[in-house]
């Protein structure tokens, strides 16, 4: 059982690495994730090791400082509860690039700009 689990994990890692290494487009990678061809885990959640980080960090290769404020330990990705940060000033520009209506991500979180 353990051997199988290990084999699947290695295979998944290889597929993910291949997707990044071959420069597969974000659209293709997003589709592959959606179809389950790339294993990003089944547990939804923001914590490292769960789907969100698996997709954005492991598969797509987004760097930590794309979302996190690096100098502030341990972790203030939402920029709210730290005394040195203004509440609510959350830049989601990096999300917009892929998740806009005509963006490459499968999850279209954002709409199109109103007239």
């Amino acid at each position, binding site marked *: 059982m353990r051997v199988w689990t290990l084999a699947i994990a290695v295979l998944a890692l290889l597929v993910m690495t291949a997707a990044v290494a071959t420069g597969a487009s974000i659209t293709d990678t997003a589709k592959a994730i959606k179809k389950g061809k790339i294993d990003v885990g089944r547990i*939804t*959640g*923001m914590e490292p090791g769960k789907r*969100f980080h698996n997709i954005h960090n492991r598969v797509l290769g987004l760097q930590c400082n794309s*979302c996190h404020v690096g100098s502030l330990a341990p972790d203030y*990705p*939402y*920029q*709210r*509860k730290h005394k040195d940060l*203004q*509440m*609510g*000033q*959350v830049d*989601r520009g990096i*999300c*917009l690039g892929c*998740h*806009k*209506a005509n963006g490459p991500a499968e*999850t*279209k*979180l*954002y*709409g*199109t*700009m*109103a007239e």
Partner: protein
Amino acid sequence: MRLGMVIDMRRCFGCRACVAACKTENMVQPGNYWNFVLEYEQGKYPNVRRIFVPMNCMHCQDPPCMKACPEKAISKNKQGVVLINYDKCKGRKYCIAACPYGVIHFIGNEKTFYPDGKKTPYEALPARARHPLHRKKPGIAEKCTFCWHRIEKALKEGKTPGSDYDSSPACIKVCPANARYFGDLDDPNSEVSRLIATKRAIQLKKEFGTKPQVYYIV
């Protein structure tokens, strides 16, 4: 009906009466805010001024939080108010990540206003004595509801939302500068529609295509 808010930034002087009113009305625990005020400076000495930007949920027409939630715990009602169902919310925080305005908060540990950890009589109210939107618990997300508990009651009584203290969100009528307005954006004769049409009213982060229902007069 599409409920919305207009905030006149020219009038706001950062007193945070809206923040306090929201906290008490909605039993928001220490550290979390459904309503807060950003402030920054504009200009160069000696010609400087301080700008205050009151922030709460924008109740977007196209809310990204609703699309992001893997539990389908966020919905938008007929009046355009975006609400979180606390029974469905599993605290995945996807909504917090997706919201470009940073107005959704996560309830981690339960915190009380008394420093010794004891609950104030208000905080000690049992869940059944509270409106469903105030039955919050650790491990879920929370945000402004446009004081839906008040609006819901006003609508049942046949009142127009925004017409008086009880039929408006708590932050509206407490504003000593009359900087906040609330009403039906679909009604061209409502005060909010009139203000949007006649003043320089903007929406924040329009580039996200969320179509916020909170407007700012600048």
